[in-house]
């Protein structure tokens, strides 16, 4: 029993700040959609409009085609997990989870059993008797998740649930949330400012900026084919390399001729957008035609990969290489730089 959620021309203004500026988005049943964007982009406001804690100034929120804008928050049937501090401090984990059923007058034994079931589902068997101040941050959020699911809502809303947690806990918990969501098949809206989080677990990523939708699509699409410069910069890192349109659907960059992906702006001088992992680095001397001679300026070791900052003809280029090559590519090394042979994105200069 899962639902479709729609935002239609949603608009919300706080004093002078425009939080939402005509947001249009559809979330299909059973999907996990991540609302991604910088602070102040309106993602939390949009989520709270679904939950009923914010009333849009104009536009509508629809659940299963029904306009719920006038429905009070306690009748929305949209379970929400807050960022932090949302567990009732005077109730233990079990009673926190059983709160919703209790309000609905579910008999004590039934609701307690269900609460225990849910706590086990979220990975906290045996902690039902603990109080919030006796639980770690990660455990508290699991209880909050169980509580949100207790009334079998038609939509699950998550407001940056992992932001206040340690890095390792964050990664583990987000995998579990995704697994749970897939098992239950519940429509889920996940708000985050962490693009890695969004890309790793979402079915669809919706990038927001200044209250408007910049792009919505599967993670790979948002990453590989950003629709706007903002998305290109916000999601992952992007190199901007000077290039020249060659007229036959190709562009010349770094001495290579590569096909243009998508529509090309009017040239001939353009910016070619290239991800660091699409830059190939090899040690000079290179006999390969089309490779330039550049120098490693800085190297940032990240465990599985190394991010190199290269200087090539006065142009700075970021490149990601496998971690085990770090030793050979120390700063000061002269290298050959080559782009992977695939269509590239081109933007106006």
């Amino acid at each position, binding site marked *: 029993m899962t639902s479709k959620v729609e935002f239609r021309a949603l608009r919300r203004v706080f004093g002078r700040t425009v939080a939402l500026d005509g947001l249009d988005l559809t979330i299909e049943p059973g999907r996990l959609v991540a609302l991604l964007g910088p602070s102040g982009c309106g993602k939390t406001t949009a989520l709270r409009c679904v939950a009923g804690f914010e009333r849009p100034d104009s536009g509508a929120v629809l659940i299963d085609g029904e306009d719920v804008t006038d429905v009070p928050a*306690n009748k929305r049937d949209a*379970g929400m997990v807050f960022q*932090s501090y949302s567990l*009732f401090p*005077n109730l233990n984990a079990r009673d926190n989870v059983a*709160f919703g059923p209790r309000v609905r007058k579910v008999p004590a034994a039934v609701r307690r059993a269900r609460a225990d079931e849910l706590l086990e589902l979220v990975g906290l068997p045996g902690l039902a008797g603990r109080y919030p*101040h006796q639980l770690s941050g990660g455990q508290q959020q699991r209880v909050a998740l169980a509580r949100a699911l207790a009334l079998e809502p038609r939509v699950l809303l998550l407001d940056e649930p992992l932001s206040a947690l340690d890095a390792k806990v964050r990664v583990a918990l987000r995998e579990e949330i995704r697994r749970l969501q897939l098992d239950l098949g519940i429509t889920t809206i996940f708000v985050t400012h962490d693009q890695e989080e969004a890309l790793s677990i979402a079915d669809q990523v919706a990038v927001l900026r200044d209250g408007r939708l910049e792009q919505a699509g599967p993670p790979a699409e948002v990453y590989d084919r950003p629709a706007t410069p903002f998305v290109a910069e916000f999601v992952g890192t992007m190199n901007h390399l000077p290039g020249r349109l060659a007229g036959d659907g190709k562009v010349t960059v770094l001495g290579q001729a590569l096909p243009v992906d998508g529509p090309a702006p009017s040239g001939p001088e353009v910016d070619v957008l290239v991800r660091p992992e699409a830059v190939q680095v090899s040690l000079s001397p290179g006999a390969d035609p089309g490779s330039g001679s550049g120098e490693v300026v800085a190297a940032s070791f990240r465990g599985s990969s190394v991010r190199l900052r290269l200087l090539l003809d006065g142009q700075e280029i970021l490149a990601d290489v496998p971690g085990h090559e770090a030793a050979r590519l120390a700063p000061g090394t002269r290298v050959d730089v080559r782009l992977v042979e695939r269509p590239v994105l081109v933007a106006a200069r």
Partner: protein
Amino acid sequence: MRRPAGWLGALPLLVFYAFVFGIPLAALLAGAFTSRGEPTLANLRQSLEGGNLTAMIGSVQVSAVVALSGAVLGTFLAYAVVTSRSAALRGAVLTASGVLANFGGVPLAFFWVATLGNSGVVSGLLGLPSGSLYSFWGLVFVYLYFSVPLMVLVMAPALDGLRPQWREAAANSGATAWHYWRHVGLPVLTPALLGGVVLLFGAAFAAYATAAAMGAGTVVPLVTLKIANALTSDVLVGQENVALALSLDMIVIAGLVMAVYLPLQRRSTRWLR
């Protein structure tokens, strides 16, 4: 080297305490159990009968009524202040509470005599019968002037500690305002509420100056007034020791009140982290 320093720093305070607080207390205990130079329980017995008992009961009654009504009124006022959008109003009421909670005493009595006393400015307007202020309820009414602000000061931080996420999470789980207050809001506030009631009781119980300045002693029996009379009266010789016994009774009651207050105060801070 470290340990002696700790004792050393605290030594002046400890010595002072032993002398200025310890000796009077010892004298009080000794005197309460002594009569004409001999150990006895007669003083204690006398302190709990007749006029003294009436006074004790009177004090407890006044204090209890003030504590309960002050707590309710103060909590509502604190809630109104905390949920108000105007920061200026918040600041003004909280500052006023800070002043009035510490005010009490003699000036308070005179304000009310000037307002609702027999020749008070307002009593004429309201057509109050003479002597209304100098009654049980008159005294309660006056005592609320410092009790309500005190409760506001206790409850405002406690109400602030109610996180908006709790309210929202409750609504999200289908709760109405009533459900929220019943299952989350009031339980979380209870330690602070009880602590406030206890604090108000203690303050009203120990009050002397206001009642004395009002001259309410003849109408409302209060143990503080009884003790003061016994101490200053030259007529009743040998009554000082009964006064000391009465004092001991007061301390025991105040002690019980404090024994309830402290653990409650600790509990309320734990939840409102």
